[in-house]
């Protein structure tokens, strides 16, 4: 099934994707097909003006690029690192980088300057209706950002967040804090698309690497009860689950919940399409 399969089956309300920490991406976004097909708008927030400029002029550019540092609303220090994509509001922790020596050069701080951070709930550039997918990759500022995003989280149906699993950045929020905030806002863990390891100790490195330092995690609105979202947001939930993650059973669940709102048959049509592609129904 194609990413836009739901759009071929029935009407899907327009999607809004908000990406905070959008610069330095090394691969196409998973939502690129939806944006290219005109099914989604993409707003990117990036603190580093050079990265933001690159984003804005890329072949597949966001609909809007906002030059801002996301945080708790206070003035913070932006640490520009040798690898620009790793620039962060948190000082790299020297004790940890004496251990992760191979990663250390990428995190060398070349410049520090003050930035006024903005809370996600305070962005007037973001539509009042909020976003459907909130994607965060803020080099340690994810928990701070989510702690000040209650309005956005009340509207979002899926949140994907990239977090460090070790305290490599001093004062950075933990994945545990991210998990707590999202659960408190009615989200449930869904899946873990990716994780990354890094080498411990001195180079040259010949032993296999197991130590994980970063992971990408997806949370979805609690799908156990229909009243958690309205019809259109369940449809958007389904469209994103299908297109971004191939979570066909979750997409079906979202459509079934949407159908309870208007006695629709979207779920049935989606199931038939999935069966036709390769699936089966439980007896």
């Amino acid at each position, binding site marked *: 099934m194609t990413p836009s399969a739901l759009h071929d089956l029935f009407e899907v309300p327009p999607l809004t994707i908000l990406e905070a920490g959008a610069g330095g991406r090394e691969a196409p976004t998973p939502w690129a097909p939806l944006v290219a097909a005109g099914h989604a708008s993409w707003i990117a927030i990036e603190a580093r003006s050079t990265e933001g400029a690159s984003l804005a002029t890329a072949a597949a550019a966001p609909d809007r690029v906002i030059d801002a540092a996301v945080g708790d609303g206070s003035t913070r220090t932006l640490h520009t690192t040798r690898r620009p994509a790793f620039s962060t509001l948190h000082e790299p922790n020297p004790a940890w980088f004496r251990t992760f020596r191979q990663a250390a050069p*990428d995190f060398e701080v070349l410049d520090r300057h003050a930035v006024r951070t903005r809370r996600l709930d305070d962005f007037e550039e973001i539509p009042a209706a909020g976003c459907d997918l909130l994607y965060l990759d803020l080099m340690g500022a994810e928990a701070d950002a989510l702690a000040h995003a209650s309005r956005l989280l009340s509207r979002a149906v899926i949140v994907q967040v990239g977090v460090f699993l*070790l305290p490599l950045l001093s004062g950075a929020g933990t994945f545990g804090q991210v998990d707590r905030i999202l659960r408190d806002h009615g989200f449930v863990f869904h*899946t873990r698309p990716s*994780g990354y*390891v890094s080498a411990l100790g001195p180079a040259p490195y010949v032993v296999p*690497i*197991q130590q*994980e330092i970063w992971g990408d995690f997806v949370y979805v609105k609690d799908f156990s009860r229909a009243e958690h979202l309205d019809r259109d947001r369940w449809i958007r939930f389904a469209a994103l689950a299908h297109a971004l993650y191939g979570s066909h059973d*979750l997409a079906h669940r979202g459509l079934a919940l949407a159908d309870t709102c208007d006695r629709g048959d979207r779920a049935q049509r989606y199931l038939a399409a999935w069966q036709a592609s390769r699936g089966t129904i439980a007896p």
Partner: protein
Amino acid sequence: MTGPPHGSGRSPFAITTIVPQPPPITIIDVGAMDIGPPAIWQPLLDAGLATVIGFEPVAAECARLNAAQRAGQRYLPYALGDGRQRTLHVTRFSACSSLYEPNPAFVELFDDLAPAFDVLESVPVQTRRLDDIEEIAASGCDYLKLDIQGAEFDTLRHATRVLTGTLVVESEVLLAPLYRDAPGFAEIDGVLAANGFVFHQWRGSGGRTLKPMHDPRGLPAFLSQTLWADLLYVKNFCDPDAQPPENWLKLAVIAHTIYGAADLAHLALCHADTLAGTWFAADYRDACAEPAVPPAPQPSTPGLLSRLLGRR
């Protein structure tokens, strides 16, 4: 950052070829029900490197485990938790029994899951805190394994003394509300961080397919929704002076033998060498670099939920 995790599994050589007489390791297994597959720590026992104290609150099951008289293992019939009297919800699949009540509104959404969580009876149990167990006070704990259907956080919160000496914790973590009000990842991550542990590996996860869909691959495969995971934490390994040399050797043995975590084992040996003037790390690195038969595929032994309900 280097890239996606390498596949886990035991290394092709025994660490005793590098460290001939490592200090003995004490394993505490909370949720020790024997359901067939070998326990994750079995390789350490098989190599004569460890002893196990396990906890199994079902008296008949505990008696069965002790009657088997397996070398290096003893089992205690205690339910671990916060020290209060709690209610044990005994489920149709006994290994899903929990101090937390199953959440049927969520469980029933999934294919091949709900029957395991049917509650047959709810009985009062007196829980005990891990820090209050005299047998553990005597033995200490180097490696703690937890798999108790949501009560892991309750146990860890009351194990501060035990965790002081513990080097490795593997815990099953509920990632979805299979049980009402059961703690999840945030709570377990927080209590382990507070006790000096850092994340090492996401060992594996389990889930189920949402009805009415059905994964044609069959269990343990599932289409998308992860429900639990086995997570591995280790004592902060940045500072060589944080542990005595013998503890670094123990960490190396556990990391290598159970998890094939050669990077962590190597670092631990580096620390031991720094403190004790030994040369284990260089020999270990050379052994890892030698062309060898690739390790036999060793699926990491999953946690209890995973073993019962399937995992990938």
